[in-house]
């Protein structure tokens, strides 16, 4: 039986209550919106990318604890990271939160591993991945709203 505390770890509550990098980014040069129509999570992501490096990143929106914490943790982690590294990190993150047996990748996630609890809650995986899908949209398909559906 899965324990609720595996899903709702303290770090999730912390980032839900006090989301980091929350609000618009005045000098953003990448932006995308994301939404999860099933549960009503909405997210706007702003990035400033220079020389293939994410110099700054902020988000705003309204969502459940999982999606808010995931967005907050993601922005914290990605600031200063190369775009290619960020995308590689999403692939690892996605593998870890959807499948068992990715211990090596899991070890590389750092604080993001607080979200691995969603693996036991298929309906909530979309909450955790929404910010990352929105990131992909901002980097590649600006103007297209990312959706988990």
């Amino acid at each position, binding site marked *: 039986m899965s324990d609720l505390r595996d899903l709702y770890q303290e770090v999730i*509550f912390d980032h839900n209550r006090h989301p980091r990098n929350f609000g618009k980014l005045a000098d953003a040069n990448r932006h995308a919106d994301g939404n999860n129509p099933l549960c*009503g999570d909405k997210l706007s992501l702003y990035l400033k990318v220079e020389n293939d490096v994410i110099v700054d990143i902020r988000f705003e929106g309204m969502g459940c604890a999982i999606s808010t914490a995931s967005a907050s943790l993601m922005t914290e982690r990605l600031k200063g990271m190369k775009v290619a590294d960020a995308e590689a990190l999403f692939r690892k993150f996605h593998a870890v939160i959807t499948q068992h047996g990715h211990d090596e990748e899991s070890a590389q996630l750092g604080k993001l591993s607080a979200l691995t609890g969603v693996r036991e809650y298929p309906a909530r995986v979309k909450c955790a991945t929404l910010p990352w899908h929105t990131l992909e949209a901002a980097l590649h398909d600006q103007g297209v709203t990312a959706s988990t559906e």
Partner: protein
Amino acid sequence: MSGVIEQRKATAIPSADFDAARIRKDFPALHQSVHGKPLVYLDNAATTQKPSSVIETLDHYYRHDNANIHRGVHTLSERASAAFEGARDKVQGFINAAERREIIFVRGATEAINLVAQSYARPRLKPGDEILITEMEHHSNIVPWQMVCEQTGAMLKVVPIDAAGELVMEEFYRLLNPRTKLLGVVHISNALGTVNPVREMIAAAHAQGAVVLVDGAQAVPHATVDVQSLGCDFYVFSGHKLYGPTGIGVLYGKAALLEAMPPYQGGGDMIRTVSFAKTEYNALPYKFEAGTPHIAGGIGLGAAIDYITAIGLDAIAAWEHELLRYATARALEIPGLRLIGTARDKAGILSFVLDGVHPHDIGTILDHEGVATRTGHHCTMPVMEHYGVPATARASFALYNTRDDVDCLIAAINKVKEIFHV
């Protein structure tokens, strides 16, 4: 993860003639555990559990009577046809339709509305005509009319709701006018529980020459519906919210209107003769039932109607009202809980939000406590917009729910607050 567990004891109930504890025994799916806790099923507005009599009817049909209907001379086909048409008679009696040919079997309320939109409204409406609906409609009673408006140039008008989740009737009367060709209104709101004054609205719409479709998906399981007494032109509902199978539903329409409408789909069963020069359509109700219908579903729906008719809808309504009264009182004791939908006339639906916790998180934690609820927008995004919330959590009651279920719900909500420190 689920297993059969002992049935939970229901608390003594005020109405001596209603025994929810006994009724629970008729529903096998209720007797299991979820995450190690006894299942408390409070998602009945989404779909109800099925009584053994319905499950056994489906089983019997497939084991003994399975055949295609209306065409075979062999014994099984005759048995299947008789059972399917017998179910139509049961539906007719259940909603007191004047004639059996006024009962059209469809997939569900959604298909019934689309049928009326495309077959009744689309050929008739012109630019300048208006379709009137309400702000609390389910998406299934919004989108088909938007499609008709796009196809015909007609305008969609919307009756607003107030803070309690009741229709603003002054606005209804203001918006209703001779250009209104059709009124589509939900009998009981799935998101708010509001019971609408459909009788009054039907009379007013008729006075302006409009026809009226009533979406009864949430109403038929919880109140006696008499379509002749209401006077509505169309009434639609789904079987699976009425303790019946999924994939079967009913369109009731006044015979004169159905007669004048072209078929919705073409195919087998809906024709009398076919040649490449001319096809003659079948009589009602078959004109609207192209292809092999959901035979088992229709028969299963008949069994569900038998089941609830034996208990009595008045008794069911009274019991659910008592559950709602109790649940509302207990929910209001919880600090930070806000009810969404506080109409004076309300059916067994408790929609709510909690300060500091997103409904999606509420739903996951309630599930962990064994309590099944719906969280989300309930296919009523305009209602969510009205209340300024992205979603709500919703508990909805059925005849087998007990005060114990309500107590489990309240305890689980308190657990949410404890986990989220709110």
